């Protein structure tokens, strides 16, 4: 890697309720392209993303360094980080169920930048149509669209995206993948994804977590190209991808 990484995570360790969930995770995110974070259920992918954003739950504690643009992010309030251009698509979608779709989007507008509604509605026309519906009554997939649309409203310096295609119909998965691909042309993305087809299409770099540690890090092509690596790290044959 020649270019300066946009995000550097060094020796990040997280404890929650007495459990040592991340045990010294270190990796970097390249200034372009998509870095995927892979690993089995429960290894700490979500915990990593949330720690970067300062969202470690109450009673939990994150140690180590997380640097972006020369500044340490840990211990800075989340809303500052986000205003500074860190976009987050949470795992559980976390749309505001009591608010309408339009209100959810309005809330995501950031002061100082013009919200790119065109971009969002071109991608998810459904969100335009359902503007007045309560987000809680959206279907699972529609909620996922809203959660993604929300960050795309603004211009970001880095996107943290946690399983964006979960629960989406195959056609929409393809569309979301395309969007992320397009987004990644301008904004680096740190992506957690279980759908290997999507990973294959998007990833430039890969980090594999295992039980709270980094088990492997390197180029995505290298990982997915090697049957041995995919089998030992991801538990699947390299050709075995889901549509």
């Amino acid at each position, binding site marked *: *890697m020649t270019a300066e990484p946009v995000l550097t995570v060094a020796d990040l360790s997280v404890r929650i*309720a*007495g*459990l*040592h969930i991340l*045990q010294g995770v270190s*990796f*970097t995110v*390249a200034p372009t392209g998509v870095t995927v974070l892979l690993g089995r259920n429960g290894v700490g992918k979500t915990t990593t993303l949330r720690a970067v954003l300062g969202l470690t739950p109450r009673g939990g504690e994150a140690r180590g360094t997380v640097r972006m643009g020369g500044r340490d992010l840990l211990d800075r309030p989340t809303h500052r980080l986000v205003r500074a251009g860190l976009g987050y698509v949470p795992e559980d979608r976390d749309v505001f169920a009591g608010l309408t779709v339009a209100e959810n989007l309005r809330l995501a507008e950031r002061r100082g930048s013009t919200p790119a509604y065109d971009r969002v509605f071109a991608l998810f026309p459904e969100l335009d149509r359902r503007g007045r519906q309560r987000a809680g009554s959206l279907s699972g997939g529609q909620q996922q669209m809203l959660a993604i649309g929300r960050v795309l409203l603004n211009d970001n310096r880095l996107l943290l995206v946690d399983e964006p295609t979960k629960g989406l119909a195959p056609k929409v998965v393809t569309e979301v993948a395309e969007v992320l691909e397009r987004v990644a042309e301008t904004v680096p993305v740190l992506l957690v994804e279980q759908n290997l087809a999507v990973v294959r299409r998007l990833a430039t*770099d890969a980090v594999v977590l*295992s*039980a*709270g*540690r*980094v*088990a*492997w*890090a*390197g*180029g995505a092509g*290298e990982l997915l190209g090697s049957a041995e690596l995919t089998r030992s790290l991801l538990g699947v044959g390299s050709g075995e991808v889901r549509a």
Partner: protein
Amino acid sequence: MTDSMVEAPPARVPDELTPHRRGWHGLRPYLPLVALAVAAVLPYSTLELPGIFEGPLNSPGTLQLLAVCLVFGGLAAGYDLLFGRTGMLSFGHALYFAAGVYGTDILVTRAGLPLWQAALLTIVGGTILAGLLGAVALRTAGIAFAMVTLAFAQVGAILVARDFGGLTGGEEGLPLDVSGLPAGLVGVANTVNLYWLALAYLALVVFVVHRVSGSPTGRVLAGLRDDERRVGVLGLDPYRFKLVAFTLAGGLAAGGGVVYCLIVGGASPHITSSELTLSLLVMVVLGGPGTRWGPVLGGVGYMYLDHRLTAFGSSDAVESLPVFLSRPLSQPLFVLGTVFILAVYFFPGGLASLRSRLGPLTRHLPARRTP
């Protein structure tokens, strides 16, 4: 980025999460019995605890105070069955307690029934009342449920205050006619019997609540606290289980009312006020909802403070302070309110969490979530 191959550590085995039965824990099941025995022989001690009680432990004043505290410990434990263990926020629990107090008082004083009949009728009546009102109120949930129960309790308060047919004595209350009561329950010298009665009530409630929450039903109640819809889809009728919990808690409260009526020797409209329900909530939260001893500690502690702070407020120690301190401190409610606030910050999770914060052995007991 460098390629690296890191040996994955062995999977975490959260053995610290498994319930442990080590060392002195073998004794633990018996601790409640030991505590009960100690409490039962307490009245034989002439120990003086200056500042804590006015007189020696066996003095009637101390026993009376303890009896009141114990009843409220039991009441709080019963309320916790609703609130801490099933997640139902009722703002009307005082109604069933008041039904117990006024029921006993009216049946004894106005109808002249012997105590045991009055008590039996009252408890049965209080339970039925809770069943009926619960059946209606449980058609709502959440804050709406809290408010409907509050509304019912408020009706109770208005009825008591209106003094229909001169039954309740209105705001002056109704002193208990003791002429028909067993002699052992009358007179200052017999305060100890009231103390034992209160202790028995507390023990009964704790036993029942413990038993119920450890029973299959208790497991369902805990499930209801988390996700009612889920319980329904598992094939259990949430409404029925909530009604059972509500009725049972109502019956326990009515029983507490009977005991309280004997201890205080009458009924007064204080106990119908919505403040009492709120104090029940405060007791439970103060102690630690959903824990075995928390609500009891909360109830006993609350009542102790409530009674003793009046003495604290008029004590010389307070009076000798500068005015800007002594004025507020001589207001018992000021001190009580301040204690609540401090308790929330210094004992999050209630008094019951103190143990887990002090004893590393118990640190990993799963913390109960407050609903």
